[in-house]
């Protein structure tokens, strides 16, 4: 095995691939080589072997090293082999996987067959000795390739090599990107700053910028995932934070993009009135809290509840909910409120809880 040198597996100009076979394990003499199963390639000039999993691991040997070779039939549990007897290594041989070997022959073990064809082609090449006709440069080392002429990647090996290089490139990019993550974070912070300042400018200059532009820009911001964000970090905790949150809620009537604790939400809602926002936090006797439009005044709710009940004679919370398209919880709260105000009275029996107009 010490006749092999590390190689990049690229074929030289004038070198042609003859045959390749996968599933081949190398033997140093009778011992299994300290390599995994790989692909053996026969070219006009060399015998090349590459690890299937690790394409970096690639070795080659000039065919001129071969004295002779013979087949070794398969046995029970043993694959067919080709035994190749070799000349001593060249003095100026490039380094390879083995510094020294006590054997002067190697074996190719064909775990996935193909030995017959390989043997035939090897015989051909060893007969024709085409390498003698078209000499190439010294056995190629792991260095970056071109010695004089351009190293052209041809054939399947070339394609494989290109893929390999692309993969390496991608790897490099990714690791660079991760290195740059901190820079990215800084960029993101900048972006948030810019967006926020623009959003504020929009808010201030309501008159100058058209509504259409505003809407468009806001949707733009929204698509970037930034809708005038108010975070704990930017505004700190406490009243100021809740005020800002309340304003935001008032603007959009929808939850901000960040997660809020219920406590924060309630505190923000308590500020609606003081901030002159058209929303109100209403707390029912039962403790249920709802956010409603200011226009949704109590009188209106009660009056409409009374109307509905009067019209139907009596209503349960479920019936009322269905009528109004509200949740049962909310509709019950309304009925209870109307009862509290003295507009309704209740009939509580085995049939359930029903509300009537207060005729007392």
């Amino acid at each position, binding site marked *: 095995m010490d006749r092999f040198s590390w190689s990049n597996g690229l074929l030289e100009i004038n070198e042609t691939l003859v045959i390749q076979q996968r599933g081949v394990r190398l033997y140093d003499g009778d011992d299994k080589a300290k390599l995994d199963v790989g692909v053996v390639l026969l070219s006009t000039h060399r015998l090349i072997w590459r690890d299937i999993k690790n394409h970096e691991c690639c070795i080659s040997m000039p065919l001129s090293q071969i004295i002779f070779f013979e087949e070794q039939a398969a046995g029970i549990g043993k694959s067919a082999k080709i035994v190749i007897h070799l000349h001593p290594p060249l003095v100026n041989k490039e380094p390879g996987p083995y510094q020294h070997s006590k054997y002067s022959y190697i074996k190719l073990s064909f775990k996935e067959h193909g030995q017959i064809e390989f043997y035939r082609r090897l015989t051909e090449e060893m007969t024709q000795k085409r390498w003698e006709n078209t000499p190439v440069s010294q056995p190629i080392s792991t260095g970056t390739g071109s010695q004089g002429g351009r190293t052209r990647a041809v054939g399947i090996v070339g394609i494989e090599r290109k893929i390999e290089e692309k993969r390496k490139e991608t790897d490099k990019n990714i690791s660079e990107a991760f290195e740059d993550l901190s820079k990215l974070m800084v960029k993101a912070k900048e972006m948030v700053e810019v967006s926020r300042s623009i959003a504020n400018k929009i808010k201030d200059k309501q008159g100058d910028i058209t509504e259409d532009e505003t809407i468009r820009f806001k949707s733009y911001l929204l698509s970037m995932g930034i809708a005038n964000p108010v975070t704990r970090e930017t505004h700190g905790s406490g009243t100021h934070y809740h005020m800002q949150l309340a304003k935001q809620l008032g603007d959009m009537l929808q939850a901000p993009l960040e997660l809020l604790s219920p406590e924060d939400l309630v505190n923000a809602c308590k500020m609606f009135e003081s901030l002159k926002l058209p929303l109100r936090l209403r707390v029912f006797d039962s403790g249920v809290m709802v956010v409603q439009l200011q226009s949704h005044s109590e009188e209106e709710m009660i009056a409409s509840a009374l109307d509905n009940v009067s019209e139907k004679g*009596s209503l349960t919370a479920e019936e009322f909910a269905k009528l109004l398209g509200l949740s049962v919880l909310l509709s019950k709260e309304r009925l209870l409120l109307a*009862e*509290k105000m*003295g507009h309704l*009275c*209740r*009939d*509580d*029996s085995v049939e359930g809880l*029903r509300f*009537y107009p*207060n*005729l*007392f």
Partner: protein
Amino acid sequence: MSFEWPWQYNFPPFFTLQPNVDTRQKQLAAWCSLALSYCRHHKLYTLDVMEAQESPVFNNKKIERKLSMEAIQVVFEELRKKGNLEWLDKNKSRCLVMWRRPEEWGKLIYQWVSKNGMVNSVFTLYELSSGDDTEGEEFHGLEEWMLMRSLQALQTEGKAEIITMDDGKGVKFF
């Protein structure tokens, strides 16, 4: 003449104790009035609470509603506060229903007495409640315990004096 039920009697919420304080006050007033007029109509002077729950007063079979025991107790307490009811036992299982309060009875009796120019006369209790002269009067047939209380009320007002006679009690009107 059959008893005329008030409109509330056929209103289902009437049989549910109302949580709204104002509504409840009106409801209880209506119950007291109904209970008393029913007792007056049927000349009932005592009530057994257990029996009451099944009596038509508190149990309207037509609308399938009846007053809960708790609610009945509340109504009775209300009657007691107004002076129309008196518990006969500590357990509050029987009570006297005074659909007319003693003072009211006393007033009626005195009216009759003075109208007939019998002030300064002496009457036995029997004469007042069951005598021929009082027939047709509302207080005719008044149970003795009720009559006694009525006269006691007049006595307090200084309009009568209860005297003990050989064979019972009597009263002199002033």
